[in-house]
């Protein structure tokens, strides 16, 4: 198993074999996480710093838990309350942290490309925990693992990604990953929430939800990113729910065994019906959270192996 990358900045730079390597390792960690002794030693002695320039509960918790289970020393820095407020630039913050010799840096930032920029300036391995509207690679990987475990494969599936594509880094990373693994991707949403030039991404675009869901194996819902909207993308939440919210009736267009996914946090009654989200026969939303920890353990483990190999060389 080889994974020849120094950082995990996005799906864009990964080959299908890289993706498979992460998922295979994550599978073993998913098993470990279900045992009573959940401790591994892959990151023993290493320092992991989580830098979140944007609010996050579940991603940060997931990375923190993943690091602790593998024996890393984990530190969380909430950058919204720190020196950034005092005017320090991203580069200066990065250089300051770099001087403390972390081995793994997990970064979330509101601006696209900010994590790439930071990775150029530090010596450690950097994991992108979401940058602007650009990428969120570990989310796409955990979605892929969830699909692979539920469907038994990660190729030749019909997968619908629904909702606010324009503002979603989750959508971008998923489109890249699922495309690389040779699935058919459909994007469903109002045209105001579709990014420009999206048809060139090798996807099918639907504005009608029922038509788009016809015969799909996986329904991936996205959160309506109210905080990224500067007004006027949709007329109202109730009209949005009526046309694009996932309920049992719309889901009936998909295959009978289609699974329902959501990266969370959910806006119940806006993009997804609450009862449906909780339906254990259809919804794999809780599995996604579980796989998140496993995928992050795997990604950090692989990067740490490269760090140790480089240090030994």
């Amino acid at each position, binding site marked *: 198993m080889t994974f020849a990358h120094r950082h995990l900045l996005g799906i*864009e730079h990964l080959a299908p074999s890289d993706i498979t390597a992460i998922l295979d390792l994550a599978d073993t960690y998913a098993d470990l996480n279900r045992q009573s002794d959940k401790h591994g030693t892959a990151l023993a002695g290493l320092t992991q710093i989580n830098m979140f320039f944007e609010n996050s509960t579940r991603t940060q918790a997931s990375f923190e838990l993943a690091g602790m289970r593998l024996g890393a020393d984990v530190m969380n820095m909430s950058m919204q309350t720190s020196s950034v407020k005092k005017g320090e*630039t*991203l*580069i200066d913050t990065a250089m300051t942290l770099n001087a403390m010799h972390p081995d793994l840096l997990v970064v979330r*930032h509101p*601006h*696209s*490309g*900010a994590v*790439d*920029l930071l990775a150029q300036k530090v010596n450690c391995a950097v994991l992108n925990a979401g*940058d*602007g*509207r*650009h*990428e969120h690679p570990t989310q796409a990987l955990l979605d892929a693992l969830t699909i692979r475990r539920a469907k038994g494969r990660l190729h030749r599936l019909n997968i619908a990604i629904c909702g606010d594509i324009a503002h979603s*880094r989750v959508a*971008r990373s998923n489109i890249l990953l699922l495309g690389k693994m040779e699935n058919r991707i459909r994007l469903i949403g109002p045209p105001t929430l579709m*990014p*420009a*030039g*999206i048809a*060139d*991404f090798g996807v099918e675009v639907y504005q009608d939800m029922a038509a788009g869901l016809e015969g799909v194996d996986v329904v991936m819902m996205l959160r309506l990113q109210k905080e990224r909207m*500067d007004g006027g993308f949709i007329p109202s939440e109730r009209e949005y729910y009526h046309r694009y919210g996932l309920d049992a009736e719309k889901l009936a267009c998909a295959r009978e065994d289609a699974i329902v996914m959501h990266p969370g946090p959910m806006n119940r009654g806006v993009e997804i019906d609450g009862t449906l989200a909780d339906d254990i026969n259809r919804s794999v939303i809780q599995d996604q959270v579980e796989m998140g920890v496993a995928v992050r353990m795997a990604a950090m483990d692989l990067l740490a192996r490269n760090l140790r190999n480089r240090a030994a060389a």
Partner: protein
Amino acid sequence: MTILFTDARLIDPEAEAETRGWLLVEGGVIRDSGTGAPPALPKGATQVDCAGKCLAPGIVDIGVKVCEPGERHKESYRSAGLAAAAGGVTTIVTRPDTTPTIDTPETLEFVLRRANEAGPVNVRPMAALTKGREGREMTEIGFLMDAGAVAFTDCDHVVRDTKVLSRALTYARSCGALVIGHPQEPGLSDGAAVTSGKFASLRGLPAVSAMAERMGLDRDIALLEMTGAAYHADQITTARALPALERAKANGLDITAGVSIHHLTLNELDVADYRTFFKVKPPLRAEDDRQAVVEAVRTGLIDVICSMHTPQDEESKRRPFEEAASGAVALETLLPAALRLYHSGQLDLVTLFRALALNPAKRLGLTSGRLGAGAPADLVLFDPDTPFVMDRFKLMSKSRNTPFDGARMQGRVLATYVGGAPVYTKG
């Protein structure tokens, strides 16, 4: 001082001719030129053997930002002048988007005093069209013209209020002033960092449709029909804006247009992994647009090529793409970059210098930009073929934010003359 240039490849955009010959400079002006054997060397004159290299009118660059007053650490009149001389630019037409804005005769006089003390090249200042470039009240256009302003512009601040702009244009017309606009629909382009399309979506960057340029141009053209003012569009960078420009010219409106060297030689994909030195305003466009704009320069629909020289320090560029400052320095790379279009066979040298020297000078009512007898001896001697690799740390500018760092380029300035005096000689 009398100089006789011999064995020169004379690039004369006014005569639309490229000839092998000689050129005589006397008392700061061009006396005569011709082909064939040069005249006898006048007494006390210096002879410059050009060895077949190109001698062309010095570049007249509309829209150079010198960061005085306000941000002298980014660019001073001294450093901008040296950079211009090294780039074959003999007249810089400076922008008023400084801190504070150049919007009163007093600040303009300060700028001119600084420029004359410090710089080796000609400086012609522009002034703001509205006070503080805020788009609310017009500046003292008459007084500013008396103080030396050659044109009026709010630079990249679009005057949003159409009524304000129509009054400013009407008033400018009565003064005979040239107004330079930035065609862009401000609502659509708010907050945009790149041009919308597949690349922007892949990178997840806030983007503006290329159509915003045409919408801005359409509005400004309608106002020209109303007011009859003289207008220059600072940068036309998209294919879709060109038919509107063509119609406006055909309808006899007093309109010209420019384009920056970056939009002629780079496209949106050059941004690659968020390279902020490629963040300019308006953003770089698709390759189809770039090709269309190059063709428009060839046909003369676009009149002027400019550097849109915008110095930024490292601090303002070493940021996430969205937060990073816009703009690139270009005084020294303008000519070698323009020569890319010559080497690719798209534009000949006469066409290039029509857009780099003759047209901008004509538009501003300057007598330079030509090789005819009586014109000021503002000249550039260059070798269009010398290859080199651009090293940004060798630039004369105080700021080194060039997108051409590390690029292979062809063509170097050998010497630059302003008013017959050498201001730069390649060491």
